[in-house]
């Protein structure tokens, strides 16, 4: 089966972002960028399915400015076969991204789309579900296990209070959670090889998709700061504070 993996370039998870003084957004100048951590897990799963002989081809897709190529190259270095960049300078929101992915899925006809469950910048947790709905395909979100089959896959999902196992008809969209796998690091020889792998660039208009944002960000502010409290000397003082000052026990 052919597998499509959308990847997003985001602020590195170890960076603490700063809100811009004019309230227009967060400051992304000279900030380290990385592949969204959940997307790394998605790429890893697709590559493992290829290595196991289940997947025939792994295609990675990203959308945004030219710098997104870097993220696609990382995915190629992890083992994806080829990449598609949808180049645009418009601010992309999940619905628009899902429409771009739908157009690509209709062209490439993958049996499976493996996506990260959420991007750690906008924290929207939507794109996979929206894509599945637009395609009329089933979805399995937040998966921690994937067992491929001929016409369907069996997945284990993380739900509140435990786990759920589903049989999902193909083609389908799955979104991955933390425990699915441990993504590999791209090795230097593979990074070199990835530079020669095909990377196709298209525009949203080529795909017939209107990416105009539906949501307007009016302002971005810092959340109220929580001030540090006190350091207690010992357990006795802690219990005293909780009982008599905070009155929470």
């Amino acid at each position, binding site marked *: 089966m052919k597998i499509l993996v959308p990847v997003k370039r985001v*602020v590195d998870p170890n960076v603490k972002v700063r*809100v811009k003084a004019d309230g227009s957004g967060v400051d992304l100048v000279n900030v380290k960028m990385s592949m969204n951590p959940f997307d790394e897990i998605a790429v890893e799963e697709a590559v493992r399915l290829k290595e196991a002989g289940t997947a025939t081809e792994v295609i990675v897709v990203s959308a945004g400015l030219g710098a997104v190529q870097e993220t696609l190259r990382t995915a190629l270095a992890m083992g994806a076969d080829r990449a598609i960049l949808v180049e645009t300078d418009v601010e992309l*929101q*999940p*619905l628009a991204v899902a429409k771009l992915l739908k157009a690509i899925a209709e062209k490439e006809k993958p049996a499976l789309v493996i996506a990260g*469950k*959420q991007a*750690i910048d906008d*924290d*929207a*947790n*939507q794109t996979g*579900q*929206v*894509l599945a*709905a*637009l395609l009329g395909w089933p*979805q*399995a*979100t937040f998966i921690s296990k994937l067992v491929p089959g001929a016409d369907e896959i*069996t997945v284990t999902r*993380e*739900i*509140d*209070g*435990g*786990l*759920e*196992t*589903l*049989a*999902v*008809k193909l083609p*389908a969209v799955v979104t991955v*959670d*933390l*425990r699915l796998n441990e993504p590999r690091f791209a090795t230097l020889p593979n990074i070199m090889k990835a530079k020669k792998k095909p990377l196709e660039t298209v525009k949203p208009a080529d795909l017939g998709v209107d990416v105009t*944002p*539906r*949501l*307007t*960000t*009016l*302002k*971005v*502010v*810092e*959340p109220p700061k929580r001030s*540090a409290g*006190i*350091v*207690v000397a*010992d*357990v006795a003082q*802690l*219990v005293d504070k*909780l009982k008599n000052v*905070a009155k*929470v*026990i």
Partner: protein
Amino acid sequence: MAILVIAEHDNAVLKAATLNTVTAAARLGGDIHVLVAGAGIGAVSQAASRVAGVAKVLAVDAPQYEAQTPENVAELVRTLASGYSHILSPATSAGKNLTPRVAALLDVAQVSDIVGIEAPDTFVRPIYAGNALATVKSADAVKVLTVRTTAFEPAGEGGSAAIEPANAGPDLGLVRLLGREVIKSARPELGAAKVIVSGGRGLGSGENYGKVLEPLADKLGAALGASRAAVDAGFVPNDYQVGQTGKIVAPQLYIAVGISGQIQHLAGMKDSKVIVAINKDPDAPIFQVADYGLVADLFAAVPELVAALG
């Protein structure tokens, strides 16, 4: 226009997260209708009808909703959507799974995880693990929202809404539920607990996690939580995880044991009323948000705390 709240339930019990969602809906102005889609949902519909502020309960009782798979439920909501200005559900695992699918079928952009309502079309939501709050305005005809439950009080009882059966949609047959393993626990649910005892990598193992933290949780009637590091290390299941990619909690008391306090973890618990941190590293970032910090070896301090609570 009316507002539709999609109830979260397990066919037997109305989940508490629905109550917070009703409170958010009440801020929007308009009659509140609650959709209960499931199989054998009599008790859930009754419970929903008693929630204060609810004008009508739409009860859709059919076998294709027993597992509440998002494919079937989203299709149902699509057919019911006309006439509603807003469609809301809680930003829980179930709500996050279903609601974007509803938004997509209506061709609207969902606003995820709202923590504030400025106007019927303008909402506040956290981004970057809660390190920034964005105010966003929706241009769509129907606003589809998921609600961060900790940002809204639960609605009380006292309602007496009419329960109206509604027609079921098709069974799309795209997904089969093979099984659910829900861990039965006598402890309160993490999302609704008043006290949470949470453990991190400092505990060293799953065995230590249980041995050290369970007596404290028992003593306080607390739910158990964990940092992502503890989940990654395999100490506890994923649904214990508090943080950006886990559960967002805001209990009266949050006790962080052996948790260093990465921003992704702080994102999930910094709205707690009182935070206690027990960690042997005085420089751990968790102390920057803790009301009461105890720099100590957790293996000595926690049993001592259990004893002191008598």
